[in-house]
C-alpha cells in the first residue's frame, strides 16, 4: 500500500519565494502527496488543533517544507508544533498517535554549503541545526529521515533549481512506494 504523504508548507511570503516555489510545484506533481500551506490556512495563526491532528492521523509521512530562518523554521511551524503536538496525543505515556510515522525536513537555505562548514560563517552544518526537529521526531516515536537540503538558493540558476526540484519529487515518490519497517 502506498504511503500517504503530508507536506506542511511554511513560507510567509510565497510571492517572494523562488526555491520553495519550485519545490512546491514539484511536490504538487507527485500523486498521493497532500500539500498543506500553513500561512494560507491560518493567516491569523489560529491553528485548528483538532483539524491538524486529524490530518496527521490520515498520513504516514509528514514533511516540514520551509526556508531556514535564524537556523530554524518560520514562526508558524513552531506555533504548529507547540499546539498540535500535544501531550497525550504526540508524546507522553498515552501519546502514541504518531508512533511509526516518518518525519522529513525539506529546507532551503540562502547561504552556500561552505557557510555551514566547520570554518564557515555558521560553524555548524544544517543537519546539526535541525537537531530540535530530530529530537521532536524521536519524542513522538517517529522515524527521522535524512533531511532534504537545498543550499545557496540566493545564487541558484533556474536550471539547477529545477534539477533539485526534480530530485525532491523523486524523493517523495520513493517515500510513497517504500514502506520501511
Amino acid at each position, binding site marked *: 500500500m502506498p504511503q500517504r504523504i503530508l507536506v506542511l508548507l511554511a513560507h510567509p511570503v510565497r510571492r517572494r519565494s523562488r526555491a520553495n516555489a519550485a519545490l512546491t510545484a514539484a511536490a504538487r506533481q507527485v500523486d498521493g502527496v497532500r500539500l498543506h500551506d500553513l500561512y494560507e490556512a491560518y493567516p*491569523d495563526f*489560529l491553528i*485548528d*488543533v483538532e483539524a491538524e491532528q486529524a490530518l496527521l492521523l490520515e498520513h504516514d509521512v509528514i514533511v516540514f517544507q520551509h526556508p531556514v530562518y535564524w537556523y530554524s523554521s518560520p514562526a508558524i511551524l513552531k506555533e504548529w508544533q*507547540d*499546539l498540535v503536538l*500535544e*501531550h*497525550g496525543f504526540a508524546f*507522553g*505515556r498515552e501519546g502514541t498517535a504518531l508512533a511509526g510515522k516518518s518525519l522529513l525536513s525539506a529546507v532551503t537555505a540562502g547561504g552556500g554549503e561552505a557557510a555551514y562548514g566547520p570554518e564557515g560563517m555558521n560553524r555548524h552544518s544544517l543537519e546539526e541545526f535541525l537537531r530540535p526537529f530530530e529530537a521532536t521526531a524521536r519524542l513522538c516515536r517517529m522515524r527521522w529521515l535524512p533531511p532534504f537540503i537545498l543550499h545557496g538558493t540566493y545564487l541558484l540558476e533556474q536550471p539547477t533549481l529545477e534539477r533539485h526540484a526534480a530530485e525532491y519529487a523523486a524523493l517523495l515518490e520513493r517515500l510513497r512506494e517504500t514502506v520501511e519497517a
Partner: protein
Amino acid sequence: MGESLLAQAFVYLLAAVAAVPIAKRLGLGSVLGYLLAGVAIGPFGLHLAGDAGEVMHFAEFGVVMMLFLVGLELRPARLWAMRGPVLGVGGLQVGLTALAVGAIGLAFGYDWRMALAAGLILAMSSTAIALQILAERGLLKTGGGETTFAVLLFQDVSVIPILTVLPLLAFTAATGGAAHHEGWITTLPPWGQAIAVLGAVAAVVFGGRLLTRPVFRLIAETRLREVFTASALLLVVGIALLMEAVGLSPALGAFLGGVVLADSEFRHELEGDIEPFKGLLLGLFFLSVGAGIDFAQVAAAPLTVAGLVVLLVLVKAAVLAGLGLAARRPRTEVLLTALVLSQGGEFAFVLLAFATQNGVLPAAEASLLVSVVALSMTVTPLLMMAYGRLADRLADADLPPEPDAIEPQGSVIIAGFGRFGQIVGRLLMAQGHPVTVLDHDMETIEALRRFGFRVFYGDASRLDLLQAAGAAEAALVVVATDAPETTLSIIGTVRRHFPQAKVLARAIDRVHAYAVMEAGADAMVRETFGSALELGVEALRRLGLPAYEAERAGRLFRRHDLRTLHRLAALRGDDGRYSLAVREASKQLVGVLERDQARGRVTIDEGWDTSGLVEEVRRQTAEG
C-alpha cells in the same frame, strides 16, 4: 353609511394595490402611480371616488405623520446645526419665488395684492411628494436631499405668517364664510395669541421631554401592542389638534414633537407604529390629489392650464437653481433640489381656500390655481425620471477629469462609499489596486476624484452604470451599500451579468447574511461583527486577561461564531426575502445562544496547556 365607507375604502385600496406595483415596475415611482390611480377613479375617470376633497382633508394627516417621523430622525442638536440652510435657502426660496410669481401676475394685469398672494401661496412645495420621492431613491441623506428638507421646513414655518398676512391683502371684504383657522384664539388680543402660541410650543417641548417617557413606559409594561400603537397615534393627533387650536401648522407641531422624542428610547417603536399609517395616508393623499383634478376646467382652457403649469414649474425650478448655482453647490445637487421642489404644495390647497374666504382671490382664479397646483404635482415624478440621466451627464462634466486608466487587471469596483466602503477602498488603494467607486454623494465623489479614484455617480444597482464602471472586466465587486435590499439587488445583477467577477458583500446582520449568501455573494462580512468582537476583546483585557490570551479568546470566538452561522443556516425559513425574514432574527438568536451554551465556558483554551504533562512527570517521579 358604514357600507359606503367600506365601499370607498375598497375603491381607494384597490386603486393603490393595482396601480402602484405597475407604476413601480415601469420605473415611474409610487407617487405617480398613486396620482394616476387617483385620476382613474376620479369623477373624470371611472367615477368611483366619492368626495375627493373630503378624502384629501382626511389624508392630509399623512403629511403630519410624515413630519413627525422626519422629526424622530432628527436630534435637536442636528436641527440646530441646520438653522443656516433653513433660514438662508428656505427664506430666499420662499421670498424670491413669491416675488417672481407676483411679478408675472402683475404682468398679466392683476392687482398687486392678488399677485403677491398667489406668489406666497405658490411658493409652497409639496413635502409629501418631495420627501416620498427622495426616500424612494435613497437621496434623503445626500447634500441635495438635505437642502430640499431645509427648504420644506422653512415653508412649513412660513405658513403661519402667510396665514396672518393674507387677510391684509384682501381687495373685498371677507365673504363671510368661516376663516380656516378661526377658533377661540382669534377672540384673544394679539398678546394673548402670542402667549397661547408660545404656550402650545412649550407644552409640546416640555410635555414631550418630561411626560411621554414615563407614560410610554407604563404603556409598554402592559405588553399590549395595540395600546402602544393607539398611544403613539394619540400623541400625534393630540399635537396636531393643539397646534390647530392656536393657529399653528399641525405638521410643524408634529415635527417638533418628533424632534423632542428623537432621543427617547421609544423612538424605534414609535417609528414602527406610525410608519404604516403614514404610508397609507400619504398614498390616500396622492390618490385624492389625482381624483381631485378638475378636468372640466382643464378641458375648458387646456392651453391656459398647461401654460400655467409649465410656467409654475419653470419659475420654481429656476429660483432654486439660481440659488444653488450662486452658492456654488455641485450641479447635480442643484438639479435635484430644483426638480424635486418644482411643484405646488398641499398647503397651497389650504391657503387657496383660505384666500378665497378672505376675499383675497376671486373663486374662479383660485379654482384655476388648484388645478394648476395638482397638475404640477404630477409633473414632478415625470421630471424625476429624467433626473438620473441628466445628473449622470452633469456629474461627468462637473467632476475633475478621471485619472489615467491604470492597468485594469485585477480591478475592483466598490458600490457604496460610506463608512464601510471607504475602509475597504483605502486598504485596496494603499496596496496599489485600481479602485472604481460607485456612489451618489457629490461631495464625496469630488474629493475622491482629486485623490485619484475613478468614481461614477449614481445608483449602483443599475446595470448600465455597472457596465460604464467596467464591471465586465472587474475581478472583484465589493458591495458596501447600507440598504439591505439594494445590496441584494446589486449582487443579483452582478451575478447575472458579470459572472467573471467575484462578489464580496457587506451584510447587515445574521439574517441578511443568509440572504446575501443565497443571492450568490462569494464572501460576506457582517458589518458590526468585527468591531463588536474587538470591543469584547478589549473588555476581556480590562477584566484582567493578558493581552495575547484575550486576543486569542476573541479569535476562537470568531471561529465558533462563523461555524454557528453556517450550521444555523438550516433554521432559515423557506422565504429568502430579507424584509420578510426579520422576525427570524430572534429565532436565530435563540439558536446561537444554545450553541454558545453547548460550547461551554472557555476559561483557558487547550493551547499550551501543560497540566497533563505536569501530572505525568509527577507520577513518574513518584514511581521512580
